[in-house]
């Protein structure tokens, strides 16, 4: 199930790509979007599709979000998690802002995951900020779904 809170991108939900052996993502609801001005969205568009096919309820917020607007959408949509993707080196800047907002508004029940071009040496810093899963390029579909599902289960 793929929903759009705003003018978002992928709404093709053809069943062609589904496979039987895919692990099930349960019924978690997740908001996916990019913050800042970087518009490289190949990865997050594919992830949105994979998660939706695996049974997640995916709300796709598209690109050009601010931490505030993403948080607003997360609240409105009542999601369990927010997933953000980065490419140009802006990940620490925006994740700091987003986690700060989550904390000050006492919304810590919303989990945070990150994907994209993340240098290995920043992984610990992101985890320290509270990011639960980090998926860098080349992560296989089943790995994404399993790790994410495990993480969300554990966090319940």
């Amino acid at each position, binding site marked *: 199930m793929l929903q759009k809170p705003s003018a978002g991108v992928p709404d093709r939900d053809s069943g062609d790509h589904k*496979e039987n052996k895919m692990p099930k993502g349960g019924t978690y609801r997740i908001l996916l979007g990019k913050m800042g*001005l970087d518009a*490289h969205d190949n990865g997050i568009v594919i992830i949105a599709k994979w998660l939706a096919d695996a049974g997640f309820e995916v709300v796709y917020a598209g690109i050009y979000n*601010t931490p505030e607007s993403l948080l607003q959408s997360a609240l409105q949509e009542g999601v369990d998690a927010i997933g953000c993707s980065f490419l*140009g*080196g802006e990940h620490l800047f925006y994740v700091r802002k987003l986690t700060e907002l989550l904390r000050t508004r006492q919304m810590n029940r919303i989990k945070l995951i990150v994907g994209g*071009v993340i240098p290995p040496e920043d992984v610990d810093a992101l985890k320290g900020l509270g990011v639960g899963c980090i998926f860098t390029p080349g992560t296989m579909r089943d790995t994404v779904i399993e790790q994410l599902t495990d993480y969300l289960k554990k966090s319940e």
Partner: protein
Amino acid sequence: MNPSKTKTTPSTYLEGERLPHFKSLSGREYKEVYTSEDVRGELELPGVYPFTRGIHKDMYRGRLWTRRQQSGYRSGKESNERIKYLLSVGQTGINMDPDLPTHLALDPDNPLAQGDVGLQGSSLVIYEDMVDLYRDIPLDRVSNTMIVEAPTSAVIIAQYLLLARERGTPWKNLIGTIMNCPLSQFVGPTFQSITTFFPVEHAVKIALDVMEYMIQHSPKWNIVNINAYNIRETGVNAVQEAAFSLALAQDYVRGLVERGLAVDTFAPRIGFFSAVHMDVFEEIAKLRAMRRIWARIMKEKFKAQNERSMWFRTACQTSALPLTAQEPLNNIVRAGIQTLAAVLAGVQSIHTTGYDEAYSLPTEESHKLSIRTQQIVAYETGVTKSVDPLGGSYLVERLTDELESEIWELLNVIEDRGGFVQCFLDRWVEDQITEMRYQMGDDMNSGQQPIVGVNLFRDASDSTEIRIFRHSDQWQQQRIKEIIDHKKNRAQEPVKRALDALERQTRKKPQENCIEPIMKAVEARSTVGEIMDAIRKAIDFKRPGM
């Protein structure tokens, strides 16, 4: 290409190693062997219409391709240092990339820009930035590509022309390129990325303004570069890359013809920027087919007389899509092979993508390695010593013919739908891209598209150590403050006058060329964001935060 049901790991011991399939990257089946039955007729010579074998008779014997690595970070000052470094190790042209806020015509002090200032390129906001950026670089001797799309291209070109004037370099002697294409330049033609901060129709109008102005004042300047590379990097295949970019180029040709310009006055100054992906022969065939098609379009459809108008001149970048975060040193090999393919295809300039691309902007070390890769291909391999060394290969000629007919077919579909810009506005392009992205994900996941170190031969114990390029938050804050101070401390009256004049012209005479009023606004020390906001207001377009 359907995703396979089972992932096959080659068993090297019992059965011998085999490929999972014999399809090309774009899904065409390679035959076991190609013979004389597969090719037709005689080949024309290089430098002869329709230029399948190259646009020049002597190609790299006469002159090697331009080595042009993309650079740009932080401010003009820092980027200038990197440019000088690259020139000192053997780069032969400049490829200058502004940062994202500049691309989207937002000032650094715009709240939306705060995290992206100087990150993926250089922050070029005011005239002084241009002065810093090209300090000590002769604008009439070093060919300079500016990677920026309309509408921002109008401000950047205005800054550049003013710089030339100040230095006493005649405009007619300027050599270089402004990418200028609002549909393909940013991250390829994805809908939301391009339409959020400026309306596409008006961006196309401004792109045509830049082209028209430069043709009239700076005839050696390249007025537009269709970024087929960024189109490809959205995940579409070789045929789509070619058809989309050729269709888009036709839209610009039509636009300039409608303005009353004769085709031979501007067509030689239209260029392309293509991708070279991993499938060596398919990519070579694609570029050969594009040369043939462009020549025919220009000659038969637009009635060009000058052969230069029929030249498909293309810069290339080795595709970053197949580069992996896993075992990044493997990317050096990939980029090396892609560079070789670009040379075998006879392109005009090359950017070899850095092996650290999957981690960060290139470090100085990785930049140098890219240049060295090209120098090794140029000077050590011998592939440059004869023109079109693959010409006459049964396989390559057959693929060139096949790709040509498929590209024509798709071109016709786009033309029937009203051209590329119309297809983009109708979201037809978006649908094509989305479908191909999903397939790209599936092909990676299923192993249909083998990627060594990722879905094949993956080494779970691989822990990457890589020196990466680091950004500084502190620098961003300083830069934002610099621009705020600039806005505070300049004489305000001339700024207001110039911006009002620009807004008035845009509102009252929407057809008029906007370059001169923009130049006046730059001279008055307006910023890129202020100038484009004046136009946004005039056309009643509200960008986020306005």
